[in-house]
């Protein structure tokens, strides 16, 4: 490819498209499923229940401390499959490129996707690329779909959550949302933040090996930890109580949230998950999480109760109690 910018012809299906696929995409994702460049990939037979998840990524800016839209697109879908209790194996990737996107930026993003896929142990086996006229998209949007097999005997979901269950959070909250927001708004602080985007399926497996896990959820955009708990409480009809003093949060995230009037409970995360386990299994689960570098800040943050059905209460730092409700409006737009 001699051109420095992505042009409309790169999405038209002609020679320029072929050149983009052969010179940029294939070298980035080289594997035997993708190589034939067929309309789809034929996978080997799998036995067991298949979990499938899809997500689209429109984060702005596309490069940020800790990652970029490419690594986010891989990790995000890997994690959604992992939240089903499955081991993610294959991904597809659809790219929508804005005319004028620098080719170097695309190269960096594809390389980042490849690195993230290797780290997660998944293969990107099918894909698509479209180019839209300038102004009809913002730089690059990526959709990824992922599949994985759910081991037999695993039965997770909000239906399995029981009164008395412990609520665990596997790592610090608020890193991703704040990191992206600070960069976008051009703010700097003494201890820079970076996104916590990471593949969590091995951490999930460590947790599942330690005890029976009733439910998992990754608290990404759409309300972060607070929003996820609110939705789960309404879905399972049980109440929850969390302790503000137990929430794992970096001091600089807490201060930055205070400065901008944000509630860290509702800021997006990309490198942690919520787990619901029986009360008696909580300590074993925390020990297993902490043995993994991605889980070293794991904490028990609350419990499931029978009182206040469908509601999430928080015991505040000051010793009071308040209700945790999903806020309306856009929290932080284009965060993931």
């Amino acid at each position, binding site marked *: 490819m001699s051109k420095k910018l992505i042009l409309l012809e790169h999405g038209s299906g002609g020679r320029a498209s072929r050149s983009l696929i052969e010179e940029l995409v294939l070298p980035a994702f080289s594997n035997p499923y993708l190589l034939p460049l067929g309309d789809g990939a034929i996978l080997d037979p799998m036995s067991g229940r298949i979990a499938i998840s899809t997500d689209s990524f429109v984060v702005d800016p596309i490069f940020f401390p800790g990652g970029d839209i490419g690594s986010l697109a891989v990790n995000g879908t890997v994690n959604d499959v992992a939240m089903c209790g499955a081991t993610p194996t294959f991904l597809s990737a659809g790219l929508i490129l804005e005319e004028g996107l620098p080719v170097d930026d695309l190269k960096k993003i594809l390389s980042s996707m490849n690195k993230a896929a290797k780290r997660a142990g998944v293969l990107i086996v099918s894909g698509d690329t479209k180019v839209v006229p300038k102004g009809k998209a913002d730089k690059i949007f990526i959709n990824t779909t992922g599949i994985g097999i759910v081991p037999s005997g695993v039965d997770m979901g909000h239906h399995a959550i029981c009164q008395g269950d412990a609520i665990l959070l596997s790592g610090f909250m608020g890193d991703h949302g704040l990191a992206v927001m600070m960069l976008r708004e051009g703010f700097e602080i003494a201890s820079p933040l970076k996104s916590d985007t990471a593949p969590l399926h091995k951490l999930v497996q460590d947790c599942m090996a330690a005890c029976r896990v009733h439910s998992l959820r990754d608290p990404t955009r759409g309300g972060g930890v607070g929003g996820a708990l609110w939705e789960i409480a309404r879905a399972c009809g049980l109440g929850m109580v969390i302790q503000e003093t137990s929430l794992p949060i970096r001091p600089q995230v807490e201060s930055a949230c205070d400065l901008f*009037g944000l509630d860290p409970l509702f800021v997006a995360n990309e490198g942690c998950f919520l787990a619901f386990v029986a009360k008696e299994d909580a300590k074993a689960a925390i020990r297993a999480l902490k043995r993994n570098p991605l889980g070293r800040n794991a904490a028990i943050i609350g419990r499931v109760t029978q009182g206040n059905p469908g509601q999430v209460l928080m015991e505040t*730092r*000051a010793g009071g109690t308040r209700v945790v409700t999903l806020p309306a*409006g856009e929290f932080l737009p284009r965060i993931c």
Partner: protein
Amino acid sequence: MTINTAPYTDARIAARLADKIRRAVDAPVRLMEVCGTHTAAILRHGIVSLLPTEVRLISGPGCPVCVTSQGDLDSFIGLCADPKILSAVFGDMVRVPGSRTSLEAARANGADVRVVYSPLEAVHLAQRNPSKEVVFFGVGFETTAPAVAGAVLAARSRNLKNFSVYCSLKRISPALDVLFSESRNAVSGLLCPGHVSVVTGLDVYKPIALKYGLPCVVAGFMPVDILQGILMLLVQLREGRPRVENAYGRAVARKGNVLARQAMESVFDTCDARWRGLGLVPGSGLCFKKEISLFDALVRFGLCPKDGPEPRGCCCAGVLKGLVMPPQCPLYKKRCTPQHPVGPCMVSGEGACAAHYKYS
């Protein structure tokens, strides 16, 4: 300079203050927290659950988004529809419903509406977009006014020809005078706004304390700050000596921020202003001096805001005066929710109705 804020969120200190509050009160008492940030902080930290039932906290008119007149909002939204205009607003204003539409809806229809955290960002937008007319919606009280003044002075020093401010800034103390001259609302004490007081100092509350015999305490926003402020109000009531006290000494100086006020005085005159819920409040507005008219969006675009009727059933006026608690509004949680707000008190992060909905 580092300030250790841990003591201000300490549960043991909070519990001791709560205990003193319980022993200081022997009859029902209504205290007004003037400032919307206090309303949100009180609910966010679960302060109400720490207080005895005799102490009732009611919200006042200190939510700048909530008290922005419908005429001003409609005027600004109308201006944004012009494709040459790039409007810069604080995030809270985006979803407030005007009489016909909102900035959020205008943005979805193609208006260039940008959320900023500081008025100076709007100046930067003007520099980066020379072909657009950048208009900043200046909504706020004395906390925000110095920053708006600073932005206008920066625009003037950079000789910007495409920047103006729609000034809807207000002064809190004249509104308190109107509020209590109408009726006392059976309010026994005022928790005064911490950040406004950083700029104004304490003396602005003296006329209120003297004229209406109201204990006034300036308080910060952390749980221990708020509880300390409440305790000091109750002690004043018990002593029968209403006065102005400062419980936020780490941020508020008696004389306030003189430099900030000087910046304001170089740019603004005081004028009458229309407050949603309170109507016309004499001397409560800030408007640009004649020599600043180049940056006055009202002059630049020949705008003449007119207030329309409030939505039927909306109790924001009563809520802002402390006469109605949000759950008492017939629309609360029924027709009026954060997803579909009818009035501004449900939209703003500092609105009493939004805070009640979110935290209780």
